Every structure is written in C-alpha cells, then in structure tokens.
C-alpha cells in the first residue's frame, strides 16, 4: 500500500502538470485568437487568391481530428519543417510546441469562422463611418471594428477557450508531462489510478466552471456604456 507521503509527492507533481496545462491553454488560445482574427478579416475581403487557401485550411482543420493533427505535427513536424525551410536536422519540435501548434491551428479555424460571422453582423455603417472619417485601415480595425467584433464573438470565444482547455490533455499522448500524464503515471505507480484521475477531472471542471463568471465580467466590461441607462 502506498503511504500518504507518496501521494503528496505525486500531488505536488500534479501541480507542475497543472502549470504546464495552463501554459498550453494560454499560448494556444492567444495564438489561435491572433491567427483566427487575421484569417477572419482576410475571409471578409473578396480576393479569391486568399479565399481558396483559407477555405482549404478551414476545411482540413475542421474535418480532421485534432489528435491526428497533433501526431502529424509532432512525429512528422520537424521533417516537414526541415524539408520546407531547408534547415539541417535541428528543429526541435517539442511536445509543448507541437501541442500548442496543433491546438492553435485547429482552433484558429474555428475562431476564423466566428470572427468572420461577427464581422458580417457588424452594421455596414460602422465601416462606412470609418471610411468617411478617413481613418487609416489598420487603426480602424484595431480601435473601432475589432473591439465590436470581439464583443459579438465573445460567447463563441468562451466556448473555444473551454474546448482548448480540454484539448490540451491530448499532449499527454505525445509525452508532455501535463496534468493527465502525471495523473496517469502516478496512477500506474501507485496502482490507484482512480484518485489521481478524478482529481485531474475536477481540475478541468473547476477551470471551465470558473470561466463562466469571468466571461460574464468580461462581457459586462465590453458592454460598458452600450446599454441605455434610464428610459
């Protein structure tokens, strides 16, 4: 029978796992948000030269399991990178970076769809007002259009945040010591997998449940001033 000392050691390791999971979550989310937003803006433009590769990209990313994309990037990634960029055998496709890359690439496609939809729902007059005032395009997007786009896309983005949180667990299958890996190893070593796995699952549930009030706060902030006060 394992002693409680063993347990506390493993639980401490699980904290390390949590930190890896959270780092993955943040990186993946930020990168998918950045790429997805750029793609979403490009998708709104008319140029077919951009549309076709974008459509293909989105179709692949939304049609193939994330796990497979992770495997392809992790196991095949450095080969592909070497072939593409002509460097010599020295790309380090670590589990962390390939995990972030895979999750971000997949979710960028979903963010792109969201942002694209939100842009289309933005009143046309907002674009025209920017044009008429002669605002430079980049700043018009940055200061006027995107803030409104994100407000519209917020519920969808919260959803993607939670999906990414759960998808980070996939990196345990390429050997990154995230929360799930630690729980699995600890479970194997102590022959008591149940405890560790349940603790891990509670972490995920707590994280996604906590997201909701935080998202509501954010929404209130973004909506600041945009609902009439008094009648």
């Amino acid at each position, binding site marked *: 029978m394992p002693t409680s000392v063993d347990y506390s050691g493993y639980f401490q390791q699980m904290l390390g796992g949590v930190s890896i999971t959270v780092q993955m979550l943040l990186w993946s989310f930020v990168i998918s948000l950045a790429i997805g937003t750029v793609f979403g803006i490009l998708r709104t433009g008319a140029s077919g030269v951009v549309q076709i590769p974008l459509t293909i990209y989105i179709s692949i990313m939304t049609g193939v399991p994330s796990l497979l994309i992770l495997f392809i990037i992790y196991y095949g990634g450095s080969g592909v990178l070497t072939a593409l960029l002509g460097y010599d055998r020295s790309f380090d496709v670590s589990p962390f970076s390939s995990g972030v890359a895979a999750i971000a690439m997949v979710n960028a496609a979903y963010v792109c769809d969201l942002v694209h939809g939100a842009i289309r729902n933005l009143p046309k*007059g907002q674009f025209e007002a920017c044009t008429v005032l002669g*605002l430079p395009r980049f700043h018009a997007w940055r200061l006027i259009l995107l803030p409104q786009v994100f407000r519209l896309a917020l519920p969808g983005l919260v959803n993607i945040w939670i999906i990414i949180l759960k998808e980070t667990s996939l990196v345990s299958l390429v050997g990154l010591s995230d929360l799930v890996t630690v729980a699995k190893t600890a479970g194997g070593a102590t022959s008591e997998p149940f405890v560790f796995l349940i603790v891990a699952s509670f972490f995920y549930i707590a994280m996604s449940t906590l997201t909701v009030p935080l998202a509501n706060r954010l929404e209130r902030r*973004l909506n600041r*001033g*945009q609902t*009439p006060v008094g009648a």
Partner: protein
Amino acid sequence: MRDISTPQTIDVSLRDVVKHYGPFQALKGVSLEVAKGETIVICGPSGSGKSTLIRCINQLETHDSGDIVVRGITVDGTPANTRDVRIEVGMVFQQFNLFPHITVLQNCTLALRLLNKGTKRLNEEKAMYYLERVRIAEQAHKYPAQLSGGQQQRVAIARALCMEPPVMLFDEPTSALDPEMINEVLQVMEDLARGGMTMICVTHEMGFARRVADRCVFMADGEIHEIAPAEAFFDAPESPRLRGFLDRILPSTAHS
C-alpha cells in the same frame, strides 16, 4: 440665401455622372454644380438614386463615368486622391453610425488622433467646441447608447465637423428619428447652413428645405428632374412628377 447668379467658387461639381449596380443603372448621367456656401436639398422617391449620388461624391461608391470635382480635385478613384477628397467632405448618415464602444468625446477626437492632427489637448478642445456648437457638450463623456436618437445624430454631426471639412453631406439625417427629436437636429443643420457651410442634404423635411435651402433638387429614376430655388420648387413645380411627389409627401411633414 444668396443670389446664385453672380459668379462664385464652385465647391462640388458633377457632370454626366453614371453609376451601375450590376445591370441596374442607379444614376443615368447626373449633372449638378454646388457653389461655396450653398445649401442644396435633394428629394425624390425611394430608390431614385439620392443616396447613390451623394455617396459618389465622397467615393463611398465609385462612379462608372462622368466627372466629379470636389474643391478643385477631380475624383479619379486612386487611393491618394480618394483620401484627399474625403478630407474635404464630411458625411452624416441616416443611422448615425457612431462608434458604440467609445465615449462621445472619443468619437469626435478619434480621427484627429489617428491622422496625427494636433495634440490630445488641442483635439479635445476642438471636439468640445463642436459639441458645444451642436449643444451637447455636457454629454461628452457618455457613451452613444446612453443618448437619445436626436442627441446621437448631433454627435455624428459634431464628429464630422471636427475634421473641419469645407463640404458636408447629409443622407436623410432625420428619418431614423422619433418626431420629437427631429427638430433639434434640423436646428443644428440650419445653424450650419446659415454659418456658410457648403451642404448637400438628402431630406424630406420640407420645412427645413423652405427655410434654408438655396436650391432644391428633385430626383427620380436616377435622373435629376428639376432644380429650383426652394419657393419655386414647392409653390410652382414644373415637372408633373415633382407635383405628384409633393402632393403625396407634404401632408406627412406637418411637424416641421
């Protein structure tokens, strides 16, 4: 009102402007000259091309043929040229199109800031000056949604004025407003007109047209059917189309 027969600087001139939407011809060769300081009111039935016409002036729509000259600049559709034209021309929309997520004051200073005009303080002073002029300075720190429709439209006017454009375009600025709020906007527009601003307004507010328009323009089916000083326009319309139009429209503008 000015005597428009004496030679004057021409601020906006259109010659044979044609515009298609796909196969549909929205403007069928429109010509119009607007002198500096003149106030022009355009009216006509829905779909007659009024919006299209004024949107061609600041190139929100590109025209297919004909010449548009704005304050000496011949519009040619290149980006630099378009930018130059838009600096000369301010525009106010039917739907206000204020930026909902920033305050009234920021709405007014944003373009100045991004175009690197003046310091923050100078810009804010200028914005406050124009907000004052539309009588809404005390609302400067509210968000647009916290204002009534009429107040919002006045902010939109102030926002356009901040760029100090010599020419202003108005596209039905009062038709999204509740009756009580129409007058406060018309009042502001009247002040502007009397202040010597060159203005082209699409509007059905006949009271406004009578009081301040130098000339009224009647459009139908993409063409200008009649141009006349306000009195002649309303009291002795020449074309039968305009007569029919006025008959239908006049009773419903009782409030102005």
